[in-house]
């Protein structure tokens, strides 16, 4: 398999990009490396690797990855496609993982200060990158709210809707195939804007965050839980070469076009004048997750199921140890960032 090493493109809009440096890749073809740093810069052309191709190529890749793999995930792990939240240093058994995934949702709501009070609770919410709708259905049920979910994967949207219908939630939750960078909603629609582990797929973090803010109603809360790389120190222009190399391999397997740091997200939210911005590193609370996923893939059921899916899913499974390596090296961070749109 001709796995192309690439530089994950800079995730920022031109106004926030720094100067680029070009470097020769291993096979001598010129590719552009970007340093990821916030700050006002000139308009530039974004360079995207050949494997990701255009943005529509990336969208297609993401959609196909999830069309192919969602079924096997649901079979083994259930309808929540995100990390569990665990007590540090506690050995988690197989049955703990489902409740850990629920706990992740509750901890995120608590961190953001979402009220359960009947008058103050969110009444309309959007699940950006909804998967098969686990969060959508959970939140709609919890708050008695209307929820819209968007995903690039038609298979996921169908499955999400079917699960909603079977759980008596068809009148509260709806799913659409749509792009998080071009959300199909008018401005100011939602009391709660929820993005649980989808930010990693966004090629343009500025546009992504702008859309989250745009569809949020005045006074609404935005909750963003996503994979980031470590914050750069003041003296650093970019990640170290071996760090970039590891992230590139992971990008390839999971259709992640760009990584940025938690600090980058905070700066983006600040630039949009969002308030009460809070961020935390939850890496220690998700540590048992990847080993557990790897173990599930190595069971007879997991193993045979993988071979019935396709190459994209298998490639994703093979990349799981890379995620563990990233966490162990303190390169990958599991971040939560929340804020409020001004009234």
């Amino acid at each position: 398999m001709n796995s192309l090493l690439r530089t994950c493109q800079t995730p920022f809009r031109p106004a926030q990009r720094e100067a680029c440096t070009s470097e020769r890749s291993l096979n001598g073809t010129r590719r552009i490396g970007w340093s990821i740093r916030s700050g006002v810069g000139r308009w530039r052309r974004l360079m995207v690797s050949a494997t990701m191709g255009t943005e529509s190529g990336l969208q297609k890749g993401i959609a196909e990855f999830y069309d192919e793999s969602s079924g096997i995930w649901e079979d083994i792990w259930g309808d929540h496609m995100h990390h569990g939240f665990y007590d540090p240093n506690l050995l988690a058994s197989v049955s703990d993982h489902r409740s850990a995934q629920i706990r992740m949702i509750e901890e995120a709501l608590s961190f953001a200060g979402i009220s359960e009070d009947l008058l103050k609770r969110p009444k309309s919410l959007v699940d950006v990158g909804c998967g098969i709708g686990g969060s959508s259905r959970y939140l709609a049920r919890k708050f008695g709210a209307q929820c819209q979910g968007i995903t690039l994967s038609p298979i996921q949207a169908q499955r999400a809707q079917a699960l909603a219908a079977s759980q008596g939630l068809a009148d509260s939750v709806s799913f659409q195939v749509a792009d998080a960078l071009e959300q199909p909603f008018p401005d100011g629609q939602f009391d709660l804007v929820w993005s649980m582990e989808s930010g990693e797929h966004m090629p343009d973090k500025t546009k992504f965050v702008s859309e989250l803010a745009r569809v949020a109603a005045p006074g609404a809360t935005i909750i963003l839980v996503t994979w980031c790389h470590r914050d750069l120190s003041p003296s650093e222009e970019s990640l170290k070469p071996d760090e970039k190399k590891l992230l590139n391999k992971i990008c390839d397997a999971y259709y992640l076009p760009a990584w940025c740091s938690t600090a980058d997200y905070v700066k983006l939210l600040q630039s949009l004048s969002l308030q009460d911005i809070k961020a935390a590193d939850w890496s220690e609370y998700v540590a048992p997750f990847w080993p557990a996923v790897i173990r599930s893939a190595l069971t007879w059921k997991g193993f045979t199921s993988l071979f019935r899916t396709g190459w994209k899913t298998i490639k994703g499974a093979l990349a799981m140890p890379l995620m563990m390596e990233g966490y162990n090296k303190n390169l990958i961070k599991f971040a939560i960032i929340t804020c409020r749109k001004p009234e």
Partner: protein
Amino acid sequence: MRLLTDYMLSSNIKGVTNGFPLRLEVEKSVEKEVDFNADFLKNMFPKIEWKALVDAFRSMGYTELPNEAESPMLDSKEFLKKFHHALLQLHLEEGALICPETGRRFPVSKGIPNMLLHEDEVFDEVYQIESQF
């Protein structure tokens, strides 16, 4: 896809200033039973542009509701039942949502709308592909 959902979507094609509400093109619709909730309907009513919703109802072949509606009508159980039926029980299974300004069709298949924009419908920088072959 319920009409309520249709009402919450908009067309964000570049240059479009009036992408809401989307019109309906109905190829196949179904009726689904949904629990009646008067409070929910009364809360939704003030947020809705009635004229736009009536156009959607009529596209689905439902003509039981008037062209105009005022809030005192919410006191009528009969009105509420019809409103409930149209907003929540009529589902578009196959067809399209139409951008009111450009006429662009967003297909609806098995009740799921596909709102993805084509590349030329999006404001963005030019993406170049650097081939490594």
